[in-house]
């Protein structure tokens, strides 16, 4: 009707949805792609490992203590002769689950608080930002130590020795890491809510919930995902540091950090004992960080919005 025929957009070039576009860009980040595969392998190993490697994690054989890698014990044994591979498979589930769950907690809490602060213009927003600042200045490691000290037994009573401490560690690590996410989400919200497409939705009569859910959140997830990956890595390190300071999982729960802690005195006698869990932590953390880096490139706001 406008009396015009237009060439179809962007000629014949095949283009994709923003997410596929992101994936396409992500795949070009070599280390990130390799890391994603590595992490997947790690996850598969700890999930499926027990079906393949059927050695009990607490089978003591003191005659076979501190043996290096062999066919019977591919990762060697610890001083009680327990199979390190089996323990690592078991502990890896916990370590990785801690990372993922703590990240989930941090992201959910952070997004909620950030979104609330970003959408409200009044006292609530100020109060939430003050709270965020307060938590940012909180000395975290000491608090982490104290909280775990404080609540572990109560939760243990309710959820069992492993479940309780898992929930606690996840909540505490996640609960002390939401602030960056909240800041990020808030600043995203502050800028996005003034964006013209949000204003257009408002002009169309979209409710605030709709504006947030359909327009603001989907555009804010990119940075949140990146922050989330960093949180996974940080939580894994935090858990191992806690174990290292003797305050993590119960001694008979062989998380990677715990294994490392147990092995630290045997570094020069049985280096394999520390090397494998240490290496696993390292690989997981590097991989996750690289994935975050790849996502950052792929989701770079400048290129999408």
């Amino acid at each position, binding site marked *: 009707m406008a009396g015009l025929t*237009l*060439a179809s957009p*962007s*000629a014949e070039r095949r283009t994709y949805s923003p997410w596929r576009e992101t994936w396409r*860009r992500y795949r*070009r980040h070599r280390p990130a792609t390799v890391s994603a595969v590595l992490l997947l392998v790690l996850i598969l190993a700890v999930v499926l490992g027990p079906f393949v490697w059927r050695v009990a994690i607490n089978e003591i054989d003191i005659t076979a203590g501190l043996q290096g890698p062999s066919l019977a014990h591919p990762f060697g044994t610890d001083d009680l002769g327990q199979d390190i591979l089996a323990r690592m498979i078991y502990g890896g589930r916990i370590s990785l689950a801690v990372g993922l769950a703590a990240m989930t907690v941090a992201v959910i809490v952070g997004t909620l608080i950030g979104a609330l602060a970003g959408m409200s213009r009044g006292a609530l927003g100020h109060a939430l930002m003050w709270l965020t600042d307060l938590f940012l200045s909180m000395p975290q490691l000491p608090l982490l130590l104290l909280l775990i000290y404080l609540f572990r037994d109560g939760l243990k009573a309710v959820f069992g020795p492993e479940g309780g401490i898992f929930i606690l560690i996840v909540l505490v690590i996640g609960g002390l890491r939401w602030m960056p996410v909240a800041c990020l989400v808030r600043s995203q919200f502050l800028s996005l809510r003034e964006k013209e497409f949000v204003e257009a939705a408002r002009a169309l009569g979209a409710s605030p919930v709709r504006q947030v859910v359909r327009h603001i959140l989907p555009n804010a997830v990119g940075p949140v995902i990146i922050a989330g990956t960093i949180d996974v890595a940080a939580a894994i390190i935090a858990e191992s540091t806690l174990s290292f300071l003797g305050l993590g999982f119960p001694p008979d729960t062989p998380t990677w950090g715990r294994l490392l802690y147990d092995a630290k005195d045997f570094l020069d006698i049985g280096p394999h004992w520390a090397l494998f869990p240490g290496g696993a932590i390292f690989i997981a953390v590097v991989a996750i960080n690289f994935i975050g880096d790849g996502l950052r490139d792929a989701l770079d706001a400048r290129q999408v919005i």
Partner: protein
Amino acid sequence: MPPLLEIKGLKTHFATDDGMLQAVDGVDLTLNKGETLCVVGESGCGKTVTAMSILKLIAMPPGRIVQGEILFEGRDLVPLTSSQLDDIRAKEIGFIFQEPMTSLNPVLTVGEQVAESLRRHEGLSNKDALDRTVEMFKLVQIPNAAGRLHDYPHQFSGGMRQRVMIAMALACKPKLVIADEPTTALDVTIQAQILDLLQDMKERFGMAVMLITHAMGVVAETAQRVVVMYAGKVVEEADVDSLFASPGHPYTQGLIRSIPRIDLASEHKTRLEAIGGTVPILINPAPGCRFAPRCRHAMQICSEQEPVLREIAPGHRMACHLGAAP
């Protein structure tokens, strides 16, 4: 006497994720001493890249001058290294950028930003350089010049910032000033001030000006000669009067006719003549004339063979198959 600046067959390409982007793909132009040359064209057609290529100010990588010569006073600048070019930058060729907001360093005082170039090229002491800066500020009509020396860019309005930019570009009295859309970001009343000022300066210093713009109005008011670019190529070149009087290329014609004209306001309103379609993407462009898909007069040959610049009248050149001898 050789022209001040002569660009021959310049090709500047950018490596992008999707392939080679041929931002500038064969640009020829000449600029004589003391002349004002306007470069017009749509956004993204390569005006800035052409200008930046002269002093190798494009990001390299991803950018690369693939081919061509840039003769400044007969000397080819293309093979020079960045540090060799440093002696020409600002000293021989001054630059004024499009966005006065972002083109000044926000954390340095404006005085320092002008003075550092004087210290570098004129070997002045700090004090002398600042004195000269005050002079320049007065020249570009910054009120209370001496007092504002130690102010930061954010304390200036857009128009004042552009004056600082002009002072900076002219500080070393270059032979050529390249002004890349110096008024696009400004309001009309301020735009008029800045254009007047530029004209003023040009006359005072007797330098040549290469003015990049996309506003035909600005071209008509300031240029002596005009180069029209489309999709990385020069499509037409003429002196300003003949270009407006008899635009040859269909793109130039469309460009002139698609703008509403205020001076004709009293006459009955006509429908604007729009150029349909959109600007082509410069990665692996289709063969033939790049304007062909949007051209009203497109012929078979247009999508097969690339037209070359040819003279259609003295001093008027154009790249179009239309009216060319078969």
